[in-house]
């Protein structure tokens, strides 16, 4: 008898999993597929027939429009890749460092510190004062720094990391290390980080996605063409096509794709990130990181 015979309850669970996950997977991928397919549909087809599974007329004019100035897109990709990599690395490291301090039960003021940063999610000064601080006080307008710093820290992610640190690391490990003479930072670096790889991977992924998709920071603070990240460039292409046609007498907007342009933009902005995701996925497979927790 093959040892891989599955018990009936496991079978039932797997069956339920297939059904539920299958439905959810379908619901989440179906719109995306429709969007990708219709990004290759002509504007005429979309306006007359809506989104179809099999478009009646194909056209790459939406992509042509986006890549009309390939240099601009490539430069934007470069900016985005840089701020995503650098920003995510910095954010993850510094956030987890702070989260570790907050997770140590022997730190007397940890709850006050947690409240200190949490308070900023409850009350904030508003768009205008923030804008004034960043432009007039900190002089960060039109700098790479503002694109990196803007989305860098999220109180939610810091607190989620704190939660993982508190409940996934047995206290005995830190005690043992301390007895061996290790300092707090060393414990953090050598013991805690490796053990919480899944949590770090997930928060790292979210942070990377936030950087990748961020156009708001650029919209507010960047006017120099060379510093515009991908999402913002795409967004500007779309808004210039959509809005200009409404206001002005512009013969050039004769047959410009607007609806298919929105879709093409979604496809273009997803590209590389979808490739990065499988890489991160391996952290979520059970059994890889365990084993070191014993003892």
């Amino acid at each position: 008898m093959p040892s891989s015979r599955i018990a009936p309850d496991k079978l039932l669970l797997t069956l339920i999993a297939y059904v539920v996950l299958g439905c959810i997977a379908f619901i989440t991928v179906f719109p995306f597929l429709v969007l990708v397919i219709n990004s290759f549909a002509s504007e005429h087809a979309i306006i007359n027939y809506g989104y179809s599974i099999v478009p009646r007329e194909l056209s790459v004019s939406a992509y042509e429009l986006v890549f009309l100035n390939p240099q601009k897109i490539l430069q934007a990709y470069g900016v985005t890749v840089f701020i995503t990599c650098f920003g995510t690395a910095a954010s993850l490291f510094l956030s987890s460092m702070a989260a570790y301090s907050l997770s140590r039960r022997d730190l007397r003021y940890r709850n006050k510190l947690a409240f200190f940063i949490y308070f900023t999610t409850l009350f904030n000064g508003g768009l205008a004062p923030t804008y004034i601080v960043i432009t007039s006080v900190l002089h960060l307008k039109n700098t790479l720094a503002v694109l990196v710093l803007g989305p860098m820290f999220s109180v939610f992610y810091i607190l989620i990391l704190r939660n993982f640190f508190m409940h996934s690391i047995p206290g005995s490990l830190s005690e043992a290390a301390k007895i061996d003479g290790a300092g707090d930072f060393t414990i953090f670096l050598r013991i805690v980080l490796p053990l919480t790889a899944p949590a770090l991977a997930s928060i790292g992924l979210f942070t990377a996605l936030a950087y990748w998709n961020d156009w708001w920071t650029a919209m507010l603070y960047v006017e120099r063409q060379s510093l515009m990240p991908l999402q913002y460039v795409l967004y500007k292409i779309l808004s210039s096509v959509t809005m200009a046609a409404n206001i002005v007498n512009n013969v050039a907007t004769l047959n410009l794709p607007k609806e298919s342009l929105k879709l093409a933009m979604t496809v273009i902005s997803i590209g590389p990130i979808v490739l990065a995701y499988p890489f991160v996925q391996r952290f979520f497979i059970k059994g890889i990181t365990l084993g070191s927790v014993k003892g």
Partner: protein
Amino acid sequence: MRHGVRFVLAALLLLLPLAFTFAGGAPEGGGTAPAKEAKIIGYLLGDAPTGMPDVLQALNARLKKDLNVTMEINYIGWGDFQAKYPLVLAAGEDIDWIYTANWSFYFQEAAKGAFLELSDSMLKENMPLHTKVLSAAAWNQVKLPNGKIYMIPTPTPDRKVPVAVIRGDLRKKYGIPPVTKFTGIEPYLKAIKANEPSMIPMNLESTYDVGQPFSYVSYANDPYFEDILYSTGSGTGLVWLLGDKTNKLHYMLEEPVLSWQKTAARTMKAWYDAGYINKDVFANKVRSKDSFVQGKSAVGFGNSIDIQSTIAGATANGWEVELVPGLDGNSHYRADPYLNNGVALAANTKNAARTLQVLDRIIEDKSYNFLVYFGVEGKNYVMKNNMIALPEGLTADKNTYPPDAAGFWFTNKDQFPPFATWTPAYVQHRKDIVDKGFLVPTPFVAFSATTDEVKTEVANANQTMVQYLQPLWIGISDNVDASFATLDQKLKAAGVEKLRTTFQSQVDEYMKRF
């Protein structure tokens, strides 16, 4: 007591932003010869066309020679417009001039102190060309209630009326008589519905089209009327009538306006029920004029200026396009104010005189004007038979600097020749506007209400109008009379009466100027 400490800390932090005081910059002494080079930064709306760097280079070459000035231009995109326009002014940094208009927050921002006051002497000294062209009436429109001027208006307001386009080829195919007035459009809609199953007679969109057909019908047989806060994008329910010498503000839910509205609402409901209008207007984001060009909608809505590209597109598809202007019972529409395009100087600018001189040239000097509007001659446009045309081999969609795209809409457009791409029907329409006297000036268009005392009522009236009037605009209503009664009740609860008395007294005061 932990909380006590926290609150004290919080209070201390509130005092941190001590740096936020805005001192107005002292304007540069005017009119002297430019000895020191100045860098001037301006803001326009929209997005920089791809050909902008070349144009800017040419522009700066000339500005350096004439005035020892280098100009930098930034853009506020349409998508960010609402959020970013006030922010750029609030920060007050690195900005000398900015595009403004009555619909582009001129009055609101001027009231907040964002713009530099322009005195008569400043203007005469630094803008000789422009002040010669502009009439006193134009400057009169620009003044705030305190009599001060903060904007340089365009010398050529848009000459436009609302205009709908229909498919002449389909009209003739189904034997419908010509549509001269919008109220006569029903046979056309019926024919389309019956014979063209893949088309929607009127495919309306949620922000612009939503109010158009209703509007056209509501004043088709009577004077044109408009909401007092129309230019700011808000609705109050208080309207003025074109040609009404009493300057009275009418409440839209009282006679005579109420009957006009009810007739329009009933018409829209009939059309909605018959399927002449798409059922989900609020969710549709595609403009009817774009839908028209693609062959989905049988009617497209726009105005004399922006409908040109729709006409060109439809004609290129081999269809015949006929225009139906949205005029009132006297064949009139209100003329746009001089405020509908303009420029203002930022309060903190350090180069006031020089900026004015630069703007003077851009607006009134023909060679500068053509450069910023049409681009580089030979590359973006050529003159053919005294008309603006594209250079040989260049198609409209490859032009890196299309007219209007750069955002310099406040220059003197009377200096421009016609475009080679205008169709005969369109040229005729433009002629008609002037020859048949469609446009009637009225001081109301330049009036701007001061809303500080009534901002609560304005906010509530606006959201009430959106929620309860807009469905009537597209005919979704089970009972027109009941819906209007509800709207009336809600508006009164929002405080429309207080708005009426406040605004009427402001209007009366304002009219004394004319």
